[in-house]
């Protein structure tokens, strides 16, 4: 226990590192994901094709490979804004297709009859989207989006392996320094992760239940 208490400030700093990675790359992924999802359902075929290729390519590449690219190959290409921005970039790129897929499945998930009904009472395209489709789609999309964020939280640990200081890096460093208290240290770090993932999971579950009633 002393290993945790002694190094508590360091652990808190690492926790803040994880949190900031989560927030920044979460926002980035949300922005790119919205654009990609928009392209995926757009009427222009080339945009659709691009979005499909982007999604499939990044979704089937291991995160380690993406971050490896950002951390070692981009600097080699004279692109080096620092390891922290590179880590955020990698996590953003990797997470964005999952966001896009979640958004798209939400829009696809609205029953066709809804749109038909809206059109049959004379709503215009804009009204249909605004009043009928999007409110339902957004509500359905919240739980899977939270799941993407939970995944992102855990994925930040991979960024820690590539020169960024966050919880996993702290775990490795402390475990090396205090060989006698490895179990305590790792469990302590795990608790910090659970501090983010478990509440998020509970929120997702609650929202999902609410949505399920509405259907």
């Amino acid at each position, binding site marked *: 226990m002393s290993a945790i208490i002694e190094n508590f400030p360091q652990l808190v700093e690492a926790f803040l590192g994880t949190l900031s990675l989560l927030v920044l790359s979460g926002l980035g992924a949300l922005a790119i994901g919205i654009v990609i999802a928009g392209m995926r359902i757009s009427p222009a075929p*080339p945009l659709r094709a691009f979005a499909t290729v982007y999604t499939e390519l990044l979704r089937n590449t*291991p995160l380690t490979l993406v971050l490896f690219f950002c951390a070692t190959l981009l600097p080699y290409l004279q692109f080096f804004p620092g390891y922290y921005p590179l880590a955020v970039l990698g996590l953003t790129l990797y997470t964005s297709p999952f966001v896009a897929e979640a958004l798209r499945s939400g829009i696809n998930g609205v029953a066709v009859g809804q749109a038909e009904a809206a059109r049959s009472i004379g709503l215009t395209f804009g009204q249909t989207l605004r009043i009928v489709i999007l409110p339902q789609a957004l509500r359905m999309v919240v739980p899977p989006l939270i799941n993407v964020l939970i995944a992102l939280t855990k994925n930040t*640990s991979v960024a820690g392996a590539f020169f960024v200081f966050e919880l996993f890096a702290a775990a490795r460093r402390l475990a090396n320094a205090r060989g006698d208290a490895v179990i305590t240290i790792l469990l302590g770090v795990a608790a910090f992760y659970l501090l983010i993932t478990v509440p998020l999971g509970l929120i997702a579950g609650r929202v999902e239940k609410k949505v399920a009633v509405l259907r």
Partner: protein
Amino acid sequence: MTVSVLYDVPGPKARRRSVMTSIVGTIAIVAGLAWLIATLAGERTTVAGATLPGLFDPSRWDIFNDIVVWRSLGEGALNTLAMAGAAAALALVVGVLFSFGRTAASPGIRVPVAVLLEFFRGMPVLLMMLFALLVFSTGTYWAGVTALALYNGAIIGEALRAGISALPSGQREAGLSLGLTPVATRFLIEFPQAFRTMLPIIVAQLVVLLKDTSLAYIVGYSELLRTGQNLTQFFGNRYAFSFFFIVLAMYLAMNLLLSWVARIISHRTSSRGGALVAADASAEQLPEGVGGVDAGEASRR
């Protein structure tokens, strides 16, 4: 596409607009790709002042004539597959055990198992690998296998539980009334059906597992990515990109193949499913809609 129901049949004006968007979009994308390729192909001056040949220069690719290079890459891929295979088999066993414990009649079993499951699901796989490596000193291979089996087993377990709870209660009652014990009912009647409905999710999770083996690179297992990096160090940095491309291509080949299998299975088994989820090929990666499963976490990576 469901979207078509949102619009009127496009008239001349709308059609012209969509053609224009297509053209502008294509030009933008092609220009972006061309810029990327030109930048990659162009010569580059390092900080030290030396000039490096472009990425598509033959001098960056000549080592791939050497069979030895391919043999080590193949070995790396085999190591990746060895870890994925063992972890997948174990994850299925762990998943069955988890769902078994999670649906147990006595709360004395159910509650601890639920807590354990939440714990495994909420933790980064990498941290579990480090734990297994440092605490049990298992060696990198078994550290990777253990962590992957536990993490993915937890998710498969949740999927199976959802599959079981989605079954009509008559199934269980019928089994019991035939004189089967509760355990026999579960194994002979409930599990086979749950497996069948949840097969797409399970296969999708195996894709995730295969991708996650690359995490073992970080704890030092010589899988595909690590092999590529070792080769880079051996042959020099000028080949860094070539090896990266080859490794990426090998990963994509393996994962896309598995994803494709997953898609076929999900189409085959979900033909009777509601239009809400099944309509969409991405359902296998983000299967949040199926029976209220929380397996959207399959999207982890």
